[in-house]
C-alpha cells in the first residue's frame, strides 16, 4: 500500500492520443474522451522525446491521430468510433424490442431513462457523444434543486447514468440516429453503425447543435483554435492563452468561468447590449468578479486571422473595429435543433425547426392533418402518435437543465398512457 495518494490518478494504463493540436480529428477524440470521463494522455506529434518512447522510429503523419488503448492496441488514424469500440463502450442492444427508445442522453433523456426503467419499461437511450449533453460540460450548476453547494454538469451526468443503468436502462454510446421509420404502431431507429432498434414508443431528446457563426474562414478552423461549445478537453490546453468566447447565455457564462482559470485573458463577446436578458444573474455576478475577464457587449466577430491555427479575431463593436490576438475561440450562441435523424416520419416543426408537441400542434392549421387518432396529442407528444419530444429540441421548452429533466420525467407518464392505448386497455 502506498503512502502517497495526492492525485488519485488511475493506476492502470490509460489511453494515449498522439496528434497535432490543430487537428479536428484529434479534437473530436479528446472531446469524446473528456466528456465520457476517460482519462487520457495527449502527446503532440512534434514532441520527439515522448513520441520515441511510445513508437520506436517515430510515427507516420498519415496515421495521425494515433491512439494507444489501455490494452496496448494501436489505432491509426484513430476515429471516435474506433476508440469507443476499442474501449468497449460500444454495446449492442440486448433486446429485440423495447417499450421506449430515447434519442439523446442529455438531462431530458437521462431523466426519461431513469423513470422509464424504474417503472418497469424496457428502455434504451441512444447517445452520439456522451451522457449529459450540453449540461454535462457545465463546470458548476449552482441553481439546480437539491444541491446547495452546486454540482458540476459532468458529475450530475455521471450520477444520472449510473442511476439509469442501475434500474436496467441501456445506453448505446458513440452512435447517432440517422433514420427513423414507423413499424406498425411502433418505430425502428436506424443508427449510424447500422444497428437497428425497435420500440413501441420513442422520445426525441436529442437537444441542439451549436448554431454556426457565419464569419468567413471561421469554420475551416474547427478544432484548430475554433470550437463550438466549450468542452472540458481544451481548458488545460489554454494555459496562459488568449481566449475569446462568443455568446450571452449561461453556456457562455459557464465557459468564461472555466477558461478564466487557465487562460491569461478571456474576452466575452456578446451581441446584445447587456447580459441581463440572457444569462442567469448568479453567473453574471460571478463573471463580473473575475479579474482576467473582459465583457464586451454590442460586439461581434467579423473576421479571423490564421495560419494553420487561429491567431486573431476581428471584432466590430459600436462602430469601431478591433483586432484581438486570440489563441482559442469558443462559440456558444445557441442551438439548432437536432431533428435530421427523425425527418422521414414527417414531424411538425416550428419556424425555427423545433419540434411541436401537445397544444402547440393546434397552432399551424395542417399539423394534425394526418393525425390518425380520435384523441388529441398528449402533452409532449408530437404529431406522430407515440413519438414524444422533451428538452431543448421541443418547441416552447424552457432551455434550462431542470426543465429538461422535468420534461424527460413527465414524458414517461405519457408513454405509459400510449402503451396502455396500444394494449387496448
Amino acid at each position, binding site marked *: *500500500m*502506498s*503512502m*502517497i*495518494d*495526492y*492525485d*488519485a*490518478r*488511475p*493506476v*492502470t494504463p490509460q489511453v494515449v492520443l498522439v496528434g497535432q493540436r490543430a487537428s479536428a480529428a484529434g479534437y473530436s477524440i479528446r472531446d469524446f474522451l*473528456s466528456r465520457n*470521463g*476517460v*482519462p487520457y494522455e495527449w502527446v503532440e506529434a512534434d514532441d520527439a522525446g515522448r513520441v520515441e518512447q511510445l513508437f520506436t522510429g517515430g510515427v507516420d503523419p498519415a496515421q495521425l491521430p494515433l491512439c494507444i488503448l*489501455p490494452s496496448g492496441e494501436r489505432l491509426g488514424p484513430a476515429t471516435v468510433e474506433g476508440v469507443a469500440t476499442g474501449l*468497449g463502450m460500444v454495446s449492442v442492444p440486448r433486446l429485440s424490442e423495447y417499450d421506449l427508445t430515447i434519442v439523446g442522453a442529455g438531462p431530458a433523456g437521462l431523466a426519461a431513462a431513469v423513470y422509464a426503467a424504474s417503472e418497469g419499461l424496457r428502455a434504451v437511450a441512444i447517445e452520439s457523444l456522451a451522457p449529459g449533453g450540453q449540461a454535462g460540460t457545465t*463546470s*458548476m450548476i449552482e441553481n439546480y434543486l437539491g444541491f446547495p*453547494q452546486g*454540482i*458540476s454538469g*459532468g*458529475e450530475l451526468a*455521471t450520477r444520472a447514468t*449510473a442511476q439509469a*443503468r*442501475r434500474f436496467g436502462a441501456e445506453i448505446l454510446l458513440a452512435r447517432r440516429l440517422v433514420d427513423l421509420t414507423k413499424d406498425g404502431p411502433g418505430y425502428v431507429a436506424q443508427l449510424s453503425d447500422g444497428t437497428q432498434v425497435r420500440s413501441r414508443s420513442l422520445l426525441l431528446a436529442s437537444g441542439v447543435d451549436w448554431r454556426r457563426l457565419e464569419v468567413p474562414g471561421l469554420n475551416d478552423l474547427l478544432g484548430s483554435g475554433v470550437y463550438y461549445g466549450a468542452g*472540458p478537453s481544451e481548458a488545460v490546453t489554454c494555459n496562459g492563452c488568449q481566449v475569446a468566447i462568443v455568446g450571452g447565455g449561461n453556456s457562455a457564462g459557464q465557459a468564461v*468561468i*472555466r477558461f478564466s*482559470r487557465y487562460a491569461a485573458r478571456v474576452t466575452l463577446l456578446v451581441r446584445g447590449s447587456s447580459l441581463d436578458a440572457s444569462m442567469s444573474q448568479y453567473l453574471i455576478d460571478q463573471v463580473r468578479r473575475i479579474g482576467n475577464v473582459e465583457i464586451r457587449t454590442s460586439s461581434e466577430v467579423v473576421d479571423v486571422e490564421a495560419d494553420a491555427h487561429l491567431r486573431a479575431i476581428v471584432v466590430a463593436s459600436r462602430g469601431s473595429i478591433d483586432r484581438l490576438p486570440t489563441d482559442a475561440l469558443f462559440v456558444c450562441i445557441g442551438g439548432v435543433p437536432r431533428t435530421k435523424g427523425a425527418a422521414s416520419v414527417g414531424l411538425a416543426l416550428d419556424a425555427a425547426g423545433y419540434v411541436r408537441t401537445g397544444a402547440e400542434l393546434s397552432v399551424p392549421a395542417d399539423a394534425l392533418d394526418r393525425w390518425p387518432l380520435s384523441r388529441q396529442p398528449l402533452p409532449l407528444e408530437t404529431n406522430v402518435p407515440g413519438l414524444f419530444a422533451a428538452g431543448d429540441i421541443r418547441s416552447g421548452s424552457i432551455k434550462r437543465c431542470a426543465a429538461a429533466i422535468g420534461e424527460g420525467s413527465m414524458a414517461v407518464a405519457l408513454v405509459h398512457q400510449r402503451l396502455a392505448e396500444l394494449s387496448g386497455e
Partner: protein
Amino acid sequence: MITEGPSKKAIAEFSELASEQQLRSLAEALGRNGVNVSLVGSGEEARDAVRSALPIGAEVYNNTSRTLEVIGVAEDVERSGLYQPLRPRLYQMDREMQGREMRQLAASPDWVVGSVHAVTEGGSLLLASASGSQLGPIVSGAGHVLLVVGGQKVVPDLEAGMRRLYEYCFPLEDLRAKQAYGVPSGVNNVLIINKAVAPGRMTVVLVNQSLGF
C-alpha cells in the same frame, strides 16, 4: 533524506512469508477483532476473492497499492466495466471548482479496496499515508472495506509493526514516490485498527504469498 531502499537487516526481518500456521492463527485473531477473513493460497485466489466480494455495479475506490496492482485487482476495478470506479472519475474532476465533490466522493465510497503495511499476530492492522486521504474511508467513511494482505506483512506486535512501517515500507515507498511523482513520501499519518466494531464492514483477504511491500 532517504535515497536507498530498506537495509539488509530490515529486508531480512520484514520480507519473510509467515508460516501457514501463523496465518491460520492470525485469521482467528482478526475474527475475534470483528474482521471477516478469507484465507487464500495465492494472489490469483485473492483476486477471485475480491471479485466475489464486490457487488456488480458497486462504487469502488481502489487505494494506491502495489498489492492490488500486482494481483490485477486495480485493473479489475478500473477497467472491467463491472463497477463504478472512483479513481478515474476523480482524476477527471477539477480540483478547484469541484473540490468539495471530490472530497465527498473520496471520503465515503461504498467500497474501499486496499492493503495494509503490517498486521500483528494479535490482529491489529497498521497503515500509513502521506496525505491521509486513504485512511478516513477505511476507518469509517467507506461502507465496506476490503483489504488484501500478503503473508510477509505479519509481525509479532505493534512495536514491530511500526518498525516495519518506518524501516521497510517507507524506504520502498519513498523510492517509488520519487520515481512516480518526483516527490518524496512521508510517514505523515498512521492508522492502527485494533478492532472493527461495525459487523460485516471489514474483510481481510489474507494471502499465503508475498505481495506488495
